[in-house]
């Protein structure tokens, strides 16, 4: 057994155990922390599979951004679970049955050992082409462009593909993020209550009035 396979099994076991704990923990904070452990294990798996850039993005976005968001909301909402209160939904038996069914289905479809690395040429994943200006071989004394392949630059290859072949989906994704941000702000915004309106400073009330005007204008 190679070391890579051993690491894969250890990390995979940790990931599965942590994800099982995510959905069984009573306290959402504990769930969130186990989710963090799962994300980190998955990032390790990504790096092992030669996807360094995706692994880094996984750590930054999931472990950095989404986990902070989750923990923030958990602590903001601060629901105390009584020990005797039920955590499970009414139809938890059906849930387990569906989960087991999907697991058996995936187990039947994905047969380990079938998917060997048939193609040994992993060049597109980790190389980038460069045009380098240097002395020409054909005409001595002159300069010419040559194509040079550099290896072990996964993030560069990904960036190349993102900005060249997948530029439109990339821009659509940025637009999506903008829409999600505006949506989250609008949904999460709070209307002022009556007593707050009395104590609020004037500029805030003016802002609220402007917002109402904008709302009316948009609905009209």
């Amino acid at each position: 057994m190679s070391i890579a396979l051993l690491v894969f099994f250890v990390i995979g076991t940790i990931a599965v155990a942590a994800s099982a704990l995510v959905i069984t923990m009573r306290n959402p904070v504990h769930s969130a922390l186990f989710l963090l452990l799962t994300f980190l294990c998955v990032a390790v798996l990504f790096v092992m599979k030669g996807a360094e850039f995706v692994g880094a993005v996984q750590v930054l976005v999931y472990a950095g951004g989404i986990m902070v968001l989750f923990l923030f909301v958990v602590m903001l909402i601060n629901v105390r679970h009584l020990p005797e209160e039920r955590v499970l939904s009414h139809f938890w038996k059906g849930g387990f049955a569906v989960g087991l069914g999907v697991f058996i289905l995936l187990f039947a479809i994905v047969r380990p050992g079938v998917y060997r690395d048939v193609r040994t040429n992993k060049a597109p994943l980790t190389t980038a082409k460069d045009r380098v200006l240097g002395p020409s071989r054909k005409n001595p004394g002159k300069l010419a462009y040559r194509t040079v392949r550099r290896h072990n630059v996964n993030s560069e290859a990904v960036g190349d593909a993102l900005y060249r072949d997948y530029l439109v989906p990339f821009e659509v994704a940025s637009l999506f993020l903008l829409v999600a941000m505006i949506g989250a702000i609008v949904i999460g915004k709070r209307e002022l209550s009556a007593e707050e309106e009395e104590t609020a400073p004037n500029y805030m009330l003016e802002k609220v009035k402007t917002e109402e005007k904008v709302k009316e204008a948009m609905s009209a």
Partner: protein
Amino acid sequence: MLSGTLFAIGLVGVIIRRNMITVLMAIELMLNAVNINLVAFSHHLASLEGQIFTIFIITVAAGEAAVGLAIIIQLYRLRSTINIDESRELHG
């Protein structure tokens, strides 16, 4: 294998939990399972498309988590509960 297991756990989590935040976490788990699959096959087929897809999935997951948590906060302000079974206004 690993991806399938993670996906099944995530699916169970989505269905059985009553706490909405935990359900969102389970959805993130499922997306992660899909990501593992995509990266593994990108390695297997030696093509970059899988990794590009994974990046877009991470983007979508981030947006989804932000909007979902905003909805949960607003629901908590209105109803003082984040229990899924008690939010059945649309139940006919």
